[in-house]
């Protein structure tokens, strides 16, 4: 109780420096947790999204670009492939499902993706989960100018069943590139927390025959999303298409290719991680500095406590406990900082990729990081605690007579 009283009163007496120091701890906690969560959870979320399809068939080029374009609806398409290529892969005995997609238009920056309704409804974007249309809607009919809108797009553009729109040419929005065709929204996709939420799905031939498109596009598609019957087939197709052919790219396995993306940007993670660790170190140093600097002002109090019978170890413990208490206040505030940071990061990731990351999923890091920071603060308290330990009682309570 006495130790708690000493710590509490000291924190109160030095409230401003306590708050500033705890603020730096909070920043360090928030940054460390946010960097870790953003990295781990986005990797996990991207990997989970990648499991919808085993492979992507597209034009010759970068596998990563192909996967990003076809699965995540990011980046530009590496080119088109012929309808016949789709037919060939669809009929391959190892292929369980082949979903052709065609892209080339947008609505205010959100991509229009043409596909076949019949195949689209078979896709399991997660084990046991197929795309569902919200009540009051239906899937588009082939040959009609109808659209099913992803939940995120519907919310952002305030689209509902019965609304109409004109697509815009290209993957980036330019108000002068409006197509003449009028599409009617016939369904809103139930949220899937996948990139499907941030695109508008229309019949394949809608993209192929959109006025102003290259006539060759009428017989071409952008890519084919593939689910295989067995994983071994993927290696055979990889061998056949990538090694022996020179026209197409078979991006397989999708999960590994996505992992390559994270490997490519791992330097960024490391920089962010380094910054977070540095902030943590600076925070611990600031605990040390703030308590150490206050030691001169506290000499008299410490000497009085010693004169009252407080042992040197008690004084030492009180200063270390004070440093740890600043750490505890800091990490608690740090969880709030984390909440704010990760919400911003999650919103950006969702808006840019459609992938939803779990921001409060339990992981030991939520205990390890706060505990490590409190320990670091306590460690920072050792130097001033030693100074307090050595406070000379008699010199401080100078005899006057």
């Amino acid at each position, binding site marked *: 109780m006495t130790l708690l009283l000493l710590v509490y009163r000291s924190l109160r007496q030095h409230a401003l420096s306590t708050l500033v120091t705890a603020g730096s701890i909070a920043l360090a906690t928030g940054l460390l947790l946010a960097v870790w969560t953003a990295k781990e959870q986005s990797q996990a979320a991207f990997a989970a999204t990648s499991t919808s399809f085993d492979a992507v068939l597209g034009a010759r080029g970068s596998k990563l670009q192909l996967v990003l374009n076809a699965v995540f609806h990011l980046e530009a398409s590496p080119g088109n492939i012929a309808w016949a290529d789709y037919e060939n892969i669809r009929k391959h005995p190892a292929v369980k499902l082949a979903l052709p997609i065609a892209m080339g238009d947008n609505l205010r920056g959100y991509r229009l993706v043409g596909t076949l309704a019949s195949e689209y409804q078979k896709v399991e974007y997660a084990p046991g989960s197929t795309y569902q249309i919200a009540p009051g809607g239906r899937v588009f009919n082939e040959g009609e100018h109808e659209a099913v809108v992803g939940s995120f797009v519907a919310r952002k553009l305030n689209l509902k069943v019965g609304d109409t729109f004109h697509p815009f040419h290209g993957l980036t929005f330019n108000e002068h590139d409006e197509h003449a065709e009028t599409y009617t929204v016939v369904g809103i996709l139930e949220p899937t927390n996948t990139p499907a939420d941030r695109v508008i799905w229309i019949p394949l031939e809608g993209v192929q025959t959109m006025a102003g498109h290259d006539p060759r596009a009428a017989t071409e598609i952008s890519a084919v999303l593939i689910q295989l019957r067995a994983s071994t087939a993927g290696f055979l197709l990889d061998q056949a298409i990538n090694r022996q052919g020179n026209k197409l790219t078979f991006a397989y396995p999708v999960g590994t290719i996505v992992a390559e993306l994270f490997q490519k940007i791992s330097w960024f993670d490391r920089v962010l991680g380094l910054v977070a660790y540095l902030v943590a170190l600076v925070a611990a140093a600031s605990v040390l500095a703030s308590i150490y600097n206050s030691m001169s002002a506290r000499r008299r109090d410490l000497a009085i406590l010693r004169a009252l019978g407080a*042992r040197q170890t008690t004084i030492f413990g009180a200063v270390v406990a004070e440093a740890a208490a600043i750490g505890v206040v800091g990490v608690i505030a740090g969880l709030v900082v984390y909440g704010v940071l990760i919400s911003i990061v999650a919103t950006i990731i969702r808006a840019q990729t459609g992938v939803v990351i779990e921001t409060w999923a339990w992981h030991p890091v939520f205990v390890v990081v706060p505990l490590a920071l409190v320990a670091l603060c306590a460690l920072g308290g050792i130097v001033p605690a030693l100074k307090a330990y050595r406070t000379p009682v008699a010199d401080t309570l100078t005899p006057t*007579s």
Partner: protein
Amino acid sequence: MLAITDLAKSFVAPDGRRTEILRIPQFGLAAGAQVALRGASGSGKTTFLHLIAGILTPDTGRIVVDGVEVTALRESQRDRLRADKIGYIFQTFNLLQGFTALENVRLGHAFGPHADRDHARHLLERVGLGSKLHHFPRQLSTGQQQRVAVARALASRPKLVLADEPTGNLDRQHAMEALTLIRSVCAENKAALLLVSHDESVLERFEDRREFSEINRLP
């Protein structure tokens, strides 16, 4: 209660020379005794009390408090001795400014064996500060601060109370009140009291008065 033999203490002066300020061949205090020491400022009275309390260590000599030889103890053991057996009333009160009156008094017994939370409250009520328990020292008058210091010194139920010019900062009326309080509470607790002062009005209240210059036999 207190037995001192052949005590000597010197300090190194700013010019580097060692100056002896105390040489006390013998001094003693019986349990429950109340003794006043008269001495001029700068005569070494506070140093004497610091030595008894184990805040300072002597160059030579022996100090025994309630059967414990202070001069043979390590620093941590002297800390424990102060917490267990000695109450110290400082001339300048030495209250902790960041702590309330009640907390200051509680700290008086917090490091000893008699950690009784209600005792601190009772003591403050006893010295007339029952309504100021949660006041900080800056919110109290000088006389009230002195009473908190008295209560704190007695909080651990010490066997020996050392009072260093305890009325030095008080006007006459408050000084007499504080003195009466210290003496009566010490008597109630059967604590020995050693008070040093140069104030005649304080000293004349004690039956047992001694001249510090007669005790301190510097050559």
